[in-house]
């Protein structure tokens, strides 16, 4: 690609990603902004002051959402890593069926499962609790985790592990010093997906949490329906923060040296 075309493509991409966020920034500091004014009449930090104060519950909700998304990601990793390994490395009877079952939650609309799920969690005494919400979030998160890990392991040569064992590494040492570095870029992408899928759950949290587990999307929605555009915009900007943060921290590892690693495993 010629440099000029590259620059153009980069600008277009940045435009698509950044431009829709600009009105949000404007809204979050607006004080009175009526049609057909092009810009807010007055600028104020009122919405931010409210959003960041303890009485709004935004910060507590932020913490709850982070906790749920982190726990969901770790649990999904616990299942998705071994499952992805088995699916990526081995061809076994029933592999297609396992893949289909894994994909099923991603294909079914959430609203179809939410009521049955709520009934089950009620009987288990998990409705309206954080563990219940985490369990519910695993349904849409697991397919992403497992499918990404399947693709990662499909490109991994297990002979490296055999070689490590023969050089005196225990199974744990082999995982830590050989397998993990090789799968790290893919693993990070899978965790990023998992975290963000859980982070943005609305319906499942609403139904299973029964209003007692207040995550950011729920809070965002209630302010939006109350017509508080300025506070909604402030919360929305807080809401996209982790995604940007994770991306900034991991981008280098995912695209840079780390990605080169898996490629070099399979020259």
């Amino acid at each position: 690609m010629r440099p000029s075309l590259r620059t153009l493509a980069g600008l277009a991409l940045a435009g698509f990603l950044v431009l829709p966020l600009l009105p949000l920034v404007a809204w979050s500091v607006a004080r009175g902004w009526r049609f057909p004014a092009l810009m807010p009449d007055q600028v104020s930090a009122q919405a931010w002051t409210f959003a960041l104060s303890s009485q709004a519950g935004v910060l507590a909700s932020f913490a709850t959402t982070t906790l749920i998304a982190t726990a969901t990601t770790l649990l999904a990793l616990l299942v998705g890593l071994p499952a992805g390994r088995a699916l990526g490395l081995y061809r076994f009877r029933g592999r297609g069926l396992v893949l289909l079952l894994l994909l099923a939650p991603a294909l079914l609309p959430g609203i179809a499962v939410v009521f049955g799920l709520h009934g089950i969690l009620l009987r288990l005494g998990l409705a309206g609790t954080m563990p219940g919400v985490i369990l519910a979030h695993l349904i849409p998160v697991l397919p992403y985790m497992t499918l990404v890990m399947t693709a990662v392991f499909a490109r991994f040569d297990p002979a490296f592990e055999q070689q490590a064992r023969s050089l005196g590494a225990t199974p744990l040492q082999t995982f830590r010093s050989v397998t993990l570095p090789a799968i790290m870029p893919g693993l990070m992408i899978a965790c990023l997906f998992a975290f963000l899928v859980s982070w943005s759950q609305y319906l499942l949290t609403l139904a299973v949490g029964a209003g007692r587990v207040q995550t950011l999307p729920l809070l965002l929605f209630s302010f939006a329906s109350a017509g508080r555009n300025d506070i909604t915009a402030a919360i929305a900007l807080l809401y996209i923060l982790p995604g940007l943060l994770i991306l900034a921290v991991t981008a280098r590892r995912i695209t840079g040296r780390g990605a080169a690693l898996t490629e070099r495993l399979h020259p």
Partner: protein
Amino acid sequence: MTTLSLHGLRKTYPGAGQAAVHGIDLTVESGSLTALLGPSGCGKTTTMKLIAGLLTPDAGEVRLDSAPITTLPPERRGVTMVFQNPLLFPHLTITQNIGFGLRMRGLSPDRIEDSVAAMLARVRLDGLGDRRPAALSGGQQQRVALARALVLQPKVLLLDEPLSNLDPSLRDEMRQLIRGLQQETGITTLVVTHDQAEAVALADRIALMLDGRLAQHGPPQDLYRRPASIAVARFFGGVNFLAGKSQRGIFHSPLGPLTLPTGAPEGERILTLRPEALHLGPGPNPRTAQVKAVTFLGTQNRIDLTVDGLLLQALTTPDLAAGMAPGTSLTVSLPPEALWLLPPDGTRGTGGPTGPVPPTLRA
């Protein structure tokens, strides 16, 4: 110094109809360099992985000296395997790769550094320690893989096709390096190869595997000159076979009576004569032959002959072959000391013939 021995080792892969390894008994003498030779798919690599502990046998035992190690995990066997592919860990430098096993053992960084530096020099890669594997050539990577195993001073070293990924020009160098390091360290070494010339040039002893079974084990000269079966003879390039009966030093064959070397066994046998031992000219056991075809093979010429309607093959130097046009008649002789009697097929040859029936048997 450790003797490696296999006792009735057997392995069938799940879903495979036939056993990959059919009950192998083999003793690899302490300090020796033994080649495990055989065509691809004969079970060599499976055998090696069974020894390394990377596969579990269905039956049988692996012992180091007299201690069974069959149930030990690979990292506790004192056996290190080097794979056909160098498999250098791409995220580590060359130095870190060679030090990998020592680090797993929890040695101090100082000691690791010393051992690795010494090892780098021994495989003539000094100065390349800080590079990544991808920056090295195939031959250099193979040397790193060897160094990474040797630095652990294993009781037994297993090398799977160490030369097959190298250019022919690098093979000789690598062969000498393996031979030199093995003699220097005295580590009992088993090398898997499908190339008989490589096995002969490299090893003290050859264990020939055919169809998952051990066909013969001994010094290279024995497998060449005194094969145990038609299959072994054929694997080492034997092409001339005559069925007949040995009686009091005479072999009664379709070519008439042939004088045998002293001490030849009696009874129904198959006689074999290496193509390079068939003498073009008068001598003991002379016969009249017609030249059918002359094929130039570079350093040698192959001459297809018919004697009394039977096909025989000779290998000779190009200058001797000069002027031998197809259709020429000449006298050939079968020197008694080069005649070797094989048991009739199927009685002792464990492998059985793997190719078509030899032309001389068909006639």
